Structure formats: structure tokens, C-alpha cells
């Protein structure tokens, strides 16, 4: 061992200085990055916090910035992310595992490998166009949550694949050999060892993937995500509302005025479904029921509607003539029809006559009943970034506040996803320790 010369000593000082420089540089860069993040978030919070509240989260879009909310967008984002996660994560893991543990390393897998890396760099709008052709037109999946989820799933699939491969590669070969030496098959090795040990890395990659997907707008607009949508997708097994389907139209002329039957609604309180008159071959059918789940009561009136004209009083007497129905005209000019269904509580209907127009006649579509478990997946939707995009470009500056609040919601969702990932990783670390 040589003795330390002065040159060595000063060399140590120099090397320490370099070390310190690096540490300082690292700290500076970290502070800068954090600073930018904090600035962005505070800026967003400053602009958006005022609007952020329960009613913002539970209101549908509106032309009035103060009434507008992100209900449909939150639900849309959550459901699209769910479909994305259900496609990208299993497919990505499977593909990554296959490439690492099963595929022979040859020119073909090399090409596949390069292409996966390339796919991760394809602009998202290209994915939107591809999805439009593939899912919307070719597979006929419509402009639905399913299409959106699959599109984003494909978009982020490469990220999951790459993350899976990296995580799998980090497992020491000697662990694989130990498993095979115990007589395990490839599947057993993957299932009992490779997958559990790489799961924490895969989860991290998957969350990065979902965090990218959650902010995408361009491909979703291409495949037809909506901006204004004031209803939610049908809940699994939720009750299917009655559909209004037009059977025919007729002009209902009383004393030189056309009497509309437009406002057809139940005039009693409660959450009962609105009964609807239906017109078919000159007949009006009034149908109603008192509670969801009870059978529909119908009363059919033969009215010469299609032939041309009928006076309001004729209508009243025609309705009165039905054994289940009674009609009166209120002082406000409302035609009130009371239904007294045998064996059931009386129900009421209202048909206003205060606007002029055409008779609209509807029938109740067959059905009612309940939605299937996955009907929601074919539903129309909107997502948070699209609402944000829409509001940012509006002239009314109060919409900018909404956009900022939406940004906060999006940020919170992303943080929540990351939180879940951290928790999952923590749980996994406890069961797997190297």
C-alpha cells in the first residue's frame, strides 16, 4: 500500500468538491422542479378554489358559469379510466411477461420491441383516428365509454408493457433458476414469482400510464366525446326509464286553435314515473304506474285525432267516458285528467293547453325493467379535460375559473390514483422483501 502524498490529499479535497457540487446541483434542480409544480398548483388553486365545492362536483354543464359543474365529466372520466385500466393493465402485463419470459429473442421480437418503444411516441391524435376507424366504424362500438377506454388503453399500453418488462428484468435470474429447479413450469414461475415480485414496478408503470390517459383530450374528441351531456350512464341493474317513442302526429284543432298535448306529466308529488299518452290509429293511450316496479295501468281512448279536429270539451267528455279516467278543466286553463285505476291509488295527469302547436303523441317503449350490468359501457360520455378545454376557450372569464377548478379536480384524481398506487406498493413490500 502506497503512502498518501500531498497530491492525493488535495485530490480528495477536489473530489469532495465535485461531490458537493453535484449534491447542490441536484438539490437546486429538485427545488426548481418542485417550485414550478407548487407554483402551478397554487395558481390553479387560487383561480379555481372559489368555484370548487360540492355543487360544482354534482352539477351538469351549464351556460351559466356559476351553475356549471363537472358531474358528468367526473363520472365519465372515472368510467373511461376504469375501462382503460381493465384493458391496458392486463394486456400490458401479459405482453410484457410474454416478451420477457416466453418469447425467444430473435429478429422478430427485436422488431416488436423497437415498435413498442416507437408506439409510446405516436401522437395521441393518431390513436384517435385509428380508434375512429377501428372501434367506431369497423367494430361498431359507437362513440361510447368502451371505445374511449379502449382507445386510451391502446394509447398507454406501451407504457405498461415497458414498465412490466423493466420490473421483470429487475428480478434476479437466480430467483427464476431457483423456481425452475424446484420443478416449476414457466406459468408457475411467472404466477408465483415473476408477477408478484414485479407487481410493485408494474403498478407504478400502470399509474403513470393512467395519469397520462386521464389528461388526454385530442383522441377522445376525435372519437366523439361530448361536451354537453346532462345525464349519467345507466347504472348497472339500475331501473330503465320508460322511453318516449313517437307513434304518429296529428293536428289537434279546437275552435281554430291547435291544442297541444305537450306537457304530459304526472301532477302529483313523489318519484313516480311520468305517465304518457300514446297515440295510435286515432287512439290515445294513457299509461301510468304509481311506483317503480308495479305493473303499468293503461286506459285507451278512442279519439278521432288523426282525422282532424276535436274540441276541448269533446276531449273532456271523451276522457270522462272512460271508466278509469276523469277530466276537468281548471281555471288556469289546464286540462286535468284523473286516473282511478282499479285496485290502485288514484293517479293524476296534466295536459296543458297554454301553448299553441302540434299534438305530440307518444307511446311508452316496451320494457322498463332494469339495465344490464354493463349497459353503461355503451353510453355517451364526456371527460374532465374536455370540459376544461371547452371552458378555457370561452369568452366569459368566469368560465376560466371553472376550468381552473376542473384542473384541481383532475389533479386531485391523479393524486388519488398515485395514493392508491403508493398504498398498494406499501402493501406489496410488506409481503415481498428482498
Amino acid at each position, binding site marked *: 500500500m502506497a503512502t498518501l502524498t500531498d497530491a492525493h490529499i488535495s485530490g480528495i479535497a477536489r473530489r469532495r468538491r465535485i461531490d458537493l457540487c453535484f449534491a447542490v446541483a441536484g438539490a437546486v434542480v429538485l427545488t426548481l422542479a418542485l417550485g414550478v409544480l407548487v407554483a402551478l398548483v397554487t395558481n390553479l388553486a387560487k383561480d379555481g378554489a372559489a368555484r370548487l365545492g360540492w355543487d360544482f362536483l354534482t352539477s351538469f354543464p351549464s351556460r351559466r358559469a356559476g351553475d356549471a359543474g363537472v358531474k358528468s365529466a367526473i363520472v365519465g372520466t372515472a368510467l373511461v379510466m376504469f375501462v382503460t385500466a381493465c384493458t391496458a393493465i392486463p394486456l400490458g402485463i401479459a405482453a410484457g411477461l410474454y416478451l420477457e419470459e416466453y418469447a425467444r429473442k430473435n429478429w422478430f421480437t427485436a422488431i416488436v420491441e423497437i415498435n413498442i418503444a416507437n408506439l409510446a411516441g405516436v401522437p395521441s391524435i393518431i390513436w384517435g383516428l385509428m380508434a375512429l376507424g377501428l372501434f367506431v366504424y369497423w367494430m361498431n362500438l359507437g362513440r361510447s365509454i368502451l371505445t374511449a377506454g379502449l382507445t386510451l388503453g391502446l394509447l398507454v399500453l406501451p407504457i405498461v408493457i415497458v414498465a412490466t418488462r423493466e420490473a421483470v428484468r429487475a428480478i434476479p435470474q437466480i430467483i427464476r*433458476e431457483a423456481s425452475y429447479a424446484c*420443478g416449476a413450469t414457466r406459468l408457475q414461475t411467472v404466477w408465483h414469482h415473476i408477477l408478484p415480485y414485479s407487481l410493485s414496478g408494474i403498478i407504478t408503470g400502470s399509474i403513470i400510464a393512467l395519469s397520462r390517459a386521464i389528461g388526454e383530450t385530442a383522441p377522445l374528441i376525435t372519437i366523439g366525446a361530448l361536451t354537453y351531456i346532462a345525464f349519467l350512464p345507466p347504472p348497472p341493474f339500475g331501473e330503465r326509464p320508460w322511453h318516449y317513442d313517437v307513434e304518429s302526429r296529428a293536428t289537434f284543432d279546437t275552435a281554430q286553435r291547435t291544442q297541444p298535448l305537450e306537457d304530459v306529466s304526472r301532477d302529483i308529488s313523489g318519484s313516480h314515473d311520468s305517465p304518457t299518452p300514446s297515440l295510435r290509429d286515432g287512439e290515445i293511450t294513457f299509461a301510468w304506474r304509481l311506483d317503480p316496479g308495479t305493473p303499468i295501468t293503461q286506459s285507451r281512448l278512442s279519439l278521432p285525432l288523426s282525422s282532424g279536429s276535436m274540441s276541448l270539451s269533446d276531449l273532456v267528455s271523451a276522457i270522462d267516458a272512460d271508466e278509469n279516467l276523469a277530466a276537468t278543466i281548471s281555471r288556469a286553463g289546464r286540462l286535468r285528467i284523473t286516473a282511478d285505476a282499479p285496485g290502485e291509488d288514484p293517479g293524476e295527469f296534466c295536459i296543458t293547453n297554454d301553448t299553441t302547436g302540434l299534438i305530440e303523441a307518444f307511446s311508452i317503449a316496451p320494457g322498463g325493467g332494469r339495465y344490464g350490468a354493463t349497459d353503461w359501457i355503451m353510453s355517451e360520455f364526456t371527460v374532465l379535460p374536455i370540459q376544461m378545454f371547452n371552458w378555457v376557450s370561452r369568452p366569459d372569464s368566469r368560465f376560466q375559473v371553472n376550468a381552473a377548478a376542473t384542473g384541481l379536480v383532475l389533479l386531485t384524481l391523479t393524486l388519488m390514483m398515485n395514493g392508491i398506487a403508493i398504498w398498494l406498493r406499501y402493501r406489496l413490500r410488506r409481503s415481498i*422483501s428482498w
Partner: protein
Amino acid sequence: MVTTPTPSENTGSNQMNAAADVSPLVASMALPQPLPSDFEPAQSPTIKAVAENLHFHYGKFHALKGVSLPIMQNQITALIGPSGCGKSTFLRCFNRMHDLYPNSTYQGAIRLLPDDINLVGPGIDPIAVRMRISMVFQKPNPFPKSIFENVAFSLRVRGGFSRSEISDEVERSLRSAALWDETKDRLHEPANKLSGGQQQRLCIARSLASHPEIILFDEPTSALDPKATRRIEELMTEIKSQVTVLVVTHNMQQASRVSDYTAFMYLGELIEYGPTAKVFQNPANQLTEEYISGRFG
């Protein structure tokens, strides 16, 4: 400098057809000199497996060049030789570990007795081989799971064991590996919390759990301190009543301490094979002597 030895007479003479009749095989093969008259094996040894003119290629690289060697049942056979001579390669032929990697080719045979199947022959499922011949590696490599799960895994891959059967088996294996007393209260703690020596014994327990016929040890103590090394050596001696042991080692004392038979390999060939005492005290080959006396390798 060492001159490359010519392959010993064995290469041409051991085209054995069946192992049913093994005594002439032992007599004729791989023993450059007849056994000394004072050699008395502990019990009369039967042959558990025999390599016959085994060649192995890593792609184009010819790593084993016609190795023929018997492995005695319930005995410890040590493989020694300078680094890179093919000991591990030879060992890993026994459990078809090479099949995990592409471009590995076997020629010749390893016959497993008494049922006489060629372990490296076509049509033999490597998984079936590994279920009968287990392995302990150079570096302790317990799975990052609990102690219990590590041992249970060998049974889980087989399937069809009840919970209680599995825990009985785990206990038996841990006892055989002299680890039971240290771990019986912490079976569900991570295996990685154990010390290196304990981890290696856990790996031995794991390979014992499946009731293997042969256990392959590839330098099992090279990562351990002398004390832990002793434990493993004792363990090998203890388990040899249950199982045949084939061990690669760089430690000459270890080979002479624990093994009953020793094989010396050099550049992919078997140079000398015989009872350990014979090989160490009276090597027939110049190279063996030089290697044992530490003049190269």
C-alpha cells in the same frame, strides 16, 4: 504451464447400453488405476446415475467434452477443478438447467438408475427431471417470501397436497436442514431476514421438501463464513442417508472432508475420478496432483 491432457481412456470405452448391469461399468470406467486394495466404501455403493460420454455445447462453445462418470447412491461426490473447467456446466446437465437458455445442446447420456432413463435424452421432460433432482445454488437464493412459503413452494408446484401435509412436509424439511429450531417460531417472517448461512440451509430445506433422489450443490458455501460453511458441510453429511449428493467445490479441504468420491475436471474433460482419499492422497494424474497441491487453478 500445463499441458493439455489427452482424454483418458474412458471416452471410447464406455458405450454402455443398459445400466441394469452396472458393476462392470464401474470397474471399467473413469478409473485410470484400479482401486487400491485398502479401499472399503462405507456401504457397498450402488450407482445412482452415470454420465456417459456427455458432451455439452453453449452455442458453438464446446464446454463438456465427453465426460463419463458414475454417481454413487447415498454418497457425496465432489467435483473439483480450476475455474471455467465445466464443473457447473456438468452439474446443471443433471437437472436440465441449461434448457432455460437457448442454443444449449446435449450429446451422450446421463442415465438415472435404477429405472434407467437418459436425463438429457430427447423426449424427457426437464420438469420431470427437476422434480427428481433438486439443486442448491452458490449464492443463497431464497424467494422473497416467508420461510414457510419458500419450503412449501416445491410442494405447491406439484399440487395435490393438503394444508396439513404441506406444513408437515415443511417441518420435516426444515428439521432435515437443521433449521427447524431456529425458525419454528417465525415461519411466516420473510426469508430474507435470515442470515446467509440460514438462508442457504433454507434453500437446502426447499430442495429436500420434494424428496429428491439427487441434490446438486454448486459451491454452496462459497458465499459463507467458515462457521456457516461447517454447518452446511455437516448437513450434507447428515442428509446423504436420504439422498445422493453431487457437490461442486473450490475448497479442497471441503472436498476431502465431506465427499466420498472426487472427480477432477479440466478444460471440459474428466481427468480423474476415484474415492476421495485415493484422489487426494495418491492422485494418478500429474494434473490432479498439481491442482490439489495448489500449484495452479
